[in-house]
């Protein structure tokens, strides 16, 4: 008779319940990370996809058209209600509508529903009845939509040329006029250009769109106020992909509009990149200097050991404390003195005595200095003594040994340190709230005015923009999709930077592994 093997008992003895909880911890952490990234990706990128507009018919005969955004249970537990974004703020007074699910009779997606993005008010959702041209001609029916598209394209070109004139001709001339340096010829050119802009503005097509909402109200919409027109329910997948990529591009290249509920984040991207570049310029020489001193020059005794520990621990100090230091010493201290000495004519409006690009970059440089010092030191420590001794034996001075042998070999480690510093700085918001970020600074700190780089100006920052749009904006629900998109962008930037640093470190280890043999 075969004894019945009991694998269960042996297995249960070998693992035990705690092992499964431990395995589950890893799985839970991975799941949470995936959930977070998935949430940002879906809601962030999904915002640019032209969603289908629903036409909702209610029991009481009312009709509304819009996008379903979220659902919420009704108090009292019976039933749920759904939030629709219906646009048409000029007609309805608001762009949202809460609808009890029980009252919905029918939801359909007619293909003739039109969405118009507008300069003022919110978007319009409804139907296009006709296009009235300047000459009085009325285009209605089937040919209205193609006519609208044609005219809108022509309008875009006109607008682009007006903008070009404004930016490239008028603006520089105005600046020279204000500075008192304009010659007679330039004044003439300015007034001629202004005339030209006036003419072009007058020549913009004065078409009127006859629109009708789904519940029968009419609206006469001037074409000049419209920036985009879509029929989302009639678009094929290819067209939607094109619209999606255009949306993403506009998000990355335009500035914010309508109190952060529309438009893009270009000034925030530019501000973040500029600040990070400035910060790297400050942190690299000082970090490398300190690391070289600690590792190469200083006597390796107890004091150096404690200093090293101290520097490492400073990497763990909360970033808000660095912000406080930046505010107290840089802004109020050094900045106040700079104002007194050089800019006293514009006091009491502070120039450098308030937050700005310079102080923010310096504060973050201080914050990330320990990171760079530690990474550079690691790189320097990895270089075998034989290299240094060999150089010295060949008659090099210590300085020459450092600059010709040691530092070039430590270059990848320095680079890793700077990349880690940049990754950390791109995500830190708390110190910037104290030393330099503006709520709304659509003028970027680099422009055509001398001195081209305005270190005293406030700037926008991606991380702060998330905080600002989520809490300071006009309508949080309307801004949510853009906040997701901005968060996704920030996370992607930081992930790419970290991956680069990890890859570099990996590459370093394999390279120097052979070197020390």
């Amino acid at each position: 008779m075969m004894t019945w093997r009991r694998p269960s008992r042996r297995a249960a003895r070998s693992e035990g319940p705690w092992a499964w909880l431990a395995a589950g911890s890893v799985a839970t952490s991975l799941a949470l990370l995936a959930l977070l990234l998935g949430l940002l990706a879906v809601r962030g990128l999904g915002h640019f996809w032209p969603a289908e507009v629903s036409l909702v018919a209610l029991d009481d005969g009312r009709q509304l058209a819009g996008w379903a955004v979220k659902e919420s249970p009704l108090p009292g537990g019976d039933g749920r209600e759904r939030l629709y974004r219906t646009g048409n703020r000029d007609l309805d007074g608001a762009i949202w509508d809460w609808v009890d699910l029980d009252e919905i009779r029918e939801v359909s997606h007619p293909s003739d529903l039109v969405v118009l993005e507008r300069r003022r008010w919110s978007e319009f959702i409804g139907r296009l009845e006709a296009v009235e041209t300047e000459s009085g001609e009325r285009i209605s029916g089937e040919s209205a939509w193609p006519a609208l598209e044609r005219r809108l394209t022509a309008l875009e070109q006109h607008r682009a040329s007006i903008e070009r004139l404004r930016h490239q001709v008028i603006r520089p001339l105005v600046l020279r006029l204000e500075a008192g340096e304009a010659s007679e010829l330039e004044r003439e050119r300015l007034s001629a250009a202004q005339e030209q802009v006036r003419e072009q503005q007058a020549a913009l097509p004065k078409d009127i769109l006859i629109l009708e909402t789904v519940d029968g109200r009419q609206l006469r919409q001037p074409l000049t106020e419209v920036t985009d027109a879509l029929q989302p329910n009639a678009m094929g997948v290819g067209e939607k992909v094109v619209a999606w990529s255009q949306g993403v591009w506009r998000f990355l290249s335009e500035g914010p509009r309508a109190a952060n509920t529309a438009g893009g984040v270009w000034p925030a991207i530019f501000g973040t990149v500029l600040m990070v570049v400035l910060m790297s310029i400050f942190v690299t020489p000082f970090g490398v200097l300190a690391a070289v001193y600690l590792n190469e020059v200083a006597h390796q005794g107890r004091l150096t050991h404690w200093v090293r520990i101290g520097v490492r621990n400073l990497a763990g100090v909360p970033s808000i404390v660095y912000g406080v230091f930046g505010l107290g010493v840089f802004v109020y201290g050094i900045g106040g003195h700079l104002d007194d000495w050089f800019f006293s004519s514009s006091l009491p409006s502070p120039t450098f005595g308030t937050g700005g690009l310079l102080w923010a970059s310096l504060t973050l440089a201080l914050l990330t200095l320990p990171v760079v010092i530690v990474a550079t030191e690691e790189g320097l420590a990895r270089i075998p003594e034989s290299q240094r001794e060999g150089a010295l034996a060949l008659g090099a001075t210590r300085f020459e040994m450092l600059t010709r042998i040691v530092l070039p070999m430590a270059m990848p480690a320095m680079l890793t340190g700077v990349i880690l510093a940049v990754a950390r700085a791109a995500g830190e918001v708390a110190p910037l709230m104290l030393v330099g970020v503006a709520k709304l600074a659509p003028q970027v700190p680099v422009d055509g005015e001398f001195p081209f780089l305005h270190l005293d100006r406030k700037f926008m920052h991606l991380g702060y923009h998330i905080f600002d749009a989520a809490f300071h904006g006009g309508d949080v629900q309307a801004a949510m999709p853009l906040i997701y998109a901005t968060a996704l962008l920030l996370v992607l930037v930081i992930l790419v930077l970290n991956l680069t640093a990890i890859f570099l470190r990996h590459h370093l280890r394999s390279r120097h592994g052979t070197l020390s043999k």
Partner: protein
Amino acid sequence: MLSAIRQRLRVALLVVGFVCATPTLAEEPVGTLGTVGSDTMAGLMLRWGEQLARQHPGMRLQLQASGSASAPPALTAGTTLVGPMSRPMTEVELSAFERHYGYPPQALVVARDALVVVVHRHNPLRSLDRPELDAIFSDGRRCGADDSMDRWSALIEGDIQGHIMPHGRNAVSGTHELFRREALCNGAFRPDVSEHPGSAAVVAAVASDPRAIGYAGLNHLTPGVHSVALRDDDGNVHRPEPSAVRSGDYPFTRDLRLYVNLPPDNALPEVERAFLDLVLSPEGQAIVEELGFVALPQAVLERQRRDLGLEPLGS
């Protein structure tokens, strides 16, 4: 020789052209308008600036919106001639200006804003009086309440039960000041009032919790919440409608002002004149409405235009 004549002709034409161009140059304002002041009015100022640039292609608005408190020092120092403020200047600020220039700054009311108490859209609460607001929001009850009010059962009947969750702004905000002054008689807030950095955040928080109550600026309301009317001591109910705000009937109203450095001979520079002309015009007031504030009545517009020396409307 012919070329020399042509050359002189060209110069002559140039001179004539310049002489003819100069009068048009004098009419067309060109330059940068720099303003320093309130961040509540930042959106409004930017929209006005955009519209101004569209009308006068050579003009540009630069705004530094760090708070109402930054406007008086900038006006006094001459850094700016126009300063937006969401609260009136204090005595100290006014006297500092007057000491410097010898005349007071001109206060122009450009829009009206109201502070509105909001509750969740399904909350049946319709009106509150000052003692009740005091009981809900304050710590120390200086404004007439006997006891603090903690539960919804004291105010309404129905599905919404439980603890009242108050929401408000953080202490650096002008809205917070206004509410404290008007509704709490300068008392202190309870420590469990959630603090939010912006009115939109307050409205979003109230819209997501049926037990919440909060206060926010009128221009931030959404259909997720509804406003609560105020009952005064005589029992009259004041709803926060634009008409009540415009007439001053609704108690928690505040004026949004532009303080202008206007010398007694009304001689404002071109740029500032053009800007104020736009602000106090139907176009400018339409922008006010669009941003959710309340536009001024026609009479007030006309009067202020006269005070500035601008042409009356309709001419």
